[in-house]
């Protein structure tokens, strides 16, 4: 269980560019919960992920994971609990390494009892093939190719596989289909749902797609001005369609956001 308690983060404090990106954000996510997050640009959604993952220290507040306080734990230590995907399909893989080497790196890194000089075995390679085949992109026959040669959709699928090779305690998806063509995007979305469902991972997904936000998962946050201004779940959410969510979003975010690109995109 993830508990976020009153975390705040101000970027560039004391300068003209000072920006309060998170303002006493609190929530808790139960094991196996799938939360979608919407909010206009600059609402602090990505910053929330950064704070949880430890990409920067938070100014105040606490982050607890399964009862342990991880607020001050360095990023590379806590990242073993988390899987994180970004909008940029290039972010999650090493382009100069082959598909097999990318998978090996993650597999060996998480393997209990593996030494610095451990390598993968034949069985591991077989497992890679099977997992890649499940992606349905023909990557199982391209193990020895550098990842830099793959398309954005293929790289994002591989990133998803890397992030869930060992099921993390929390999977954070930051508009991970936004940079893909519509066909790849819907394919990655299907993969995401089936992987998350099968392994029962707790998942938070930022999206700018209202349809995705209501259709996927079992709880939705609306973020604005560094705060979670709406937390929708249960009966209320089941009865909610895109129109209602958009309306709620518009109302809660206030008139300032009427021109927001996201809303325009939804109304088109």
């Amino acid at each position, binding site marked *: 269980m993830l508990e976020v308690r009153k975390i705040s983060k101000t970027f560039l404090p004391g300068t003209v560019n000072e920006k309060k990106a998170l303002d006493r954000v609190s929530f808790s996510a139960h094991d196996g919960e799938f939360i979608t997050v919407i909010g206009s640009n600059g609402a602090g959604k990505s910053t929330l992920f950064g704070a949880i*993952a430890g990409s920067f220290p938070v100014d105040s507040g606490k982050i607890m994971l399964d009862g342990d306080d991880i607020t001050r734990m360095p*990023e*590379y*230590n806590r*990242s*073993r609990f*988390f899987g*994180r995907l970004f909008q940029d399909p*290039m*972010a*999650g*893989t*090493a*382009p*100069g*390494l082959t598909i097999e*080497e*990318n998978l*090996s*790196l*993650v597999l*060996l*890194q*998480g393997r209990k009892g*593996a*030494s*610095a*000089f*451990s*390598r*993968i075995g034949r069985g591991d390679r077989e497992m890679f093939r099977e997992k890649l085949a499940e992606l349905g992109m023909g990557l199982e026959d391209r193990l020895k190719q*550098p990842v830099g040669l793959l398309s954005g959709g293929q790289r994002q699928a591989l990133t998803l596989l*890397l992030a869930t090779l060992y099921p993390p305690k929390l999977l954070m998806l930051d508009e991970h289909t936004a940079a893909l063509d519509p066909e790849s995007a819907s394919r990655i979305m299907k993969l995401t749902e089936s992987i998350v469902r099968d392994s029962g991972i707790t998942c938070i997904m930022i999206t700018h797609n209202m349809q995705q936000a209501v259709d996927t998962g079992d709880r939705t946050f609306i973020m604005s001005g560094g705060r979670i201004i709406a937390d929708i779940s249960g009966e209320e959410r089941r009865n909610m369609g895109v129109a209602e969510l958009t309306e709620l979003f518009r109302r809660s975010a206030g008139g300032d956001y009427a021109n927001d690109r996201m809303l325009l995109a939804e109304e088109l």
Partner: protein
Amino acid sequence: MERIIRTALELGFGYAPVALALFLSFRVLDIADLATDGCFVLGAAVSVRMAAAGHPVLGMLLAIPAGMLVGIVSAELQTRLGIPSILAGIIVNTALYSVNLMVMGWRSNVNLIKEDSVFTLFKKVFHSPWSDLVMLAVFPLFIALFLRAFMSTRLGLSVRATGDNPVMVRASSIDTSAMIRTGLLMSSAMTALSGAAIGQYQKTVDINSGTGVVVIALACLIIGETVLGRRSVGKGIAGAVIGSIIYRFIYAFVFYTQLVPVQCLKLLTSAIVAAAIAIPHLREERASAAVTDVEEEEDA
């Protein structure tokens, strides 16, 4: 003629560990390690000074931790103190000038006269004019095999990924600073070992004998890549050794034909390195300029 070929091979293998070191630091970790020149001299100084004191084998062995120390200092300056990698290298290189003089007993050169080196010792058991070459070839071949195996280990993959996509590496619970330290520790050890071998082979070390070593090693790397291609790690490693040998043949050719004055060779080498690094960049710029042209035409 045979002697010329032999000498070219000897120098090619002798300097090959520096090219391998650059493969690791420059190609894999994407760090131009400018402490290379000083680190090479440090290896030579330790090795020759120890040989002069009657411990040639110990001299070779001690050069390795000496090099590692240099790698650790360079890495710490970059990762812990936030000094840009190029500047960190220059700082360490400058500091090494004093350190090297100190190792050499505050003299600017040390020579072996009657004292044994690992090469004279080896010749006593292996009577052949090729014995030096055999000895010199052992180091790069061993390093190349080791590197090849290392690159697919957990640590090796982590070092490679650190140069490739540090964000991904941190997200995989790996400390990128530790990977930079590991990589530079290894590459500096290789450079120092090369210096140690060349020092005892030439029976001398001079405080300035490292000048240009880093640029020459880069040239070797680039020659190797031109011959073998850059696609795989194995080719990159083999290319470093082969490039180093080809470079010494070019050097011998120029030296004996006087095609250009030998004094100009460093100028030539630098021009080759600058061009080889610039060409892919220029090609990219041209490609993106072409794209803009098309867009402008469409707009028009």
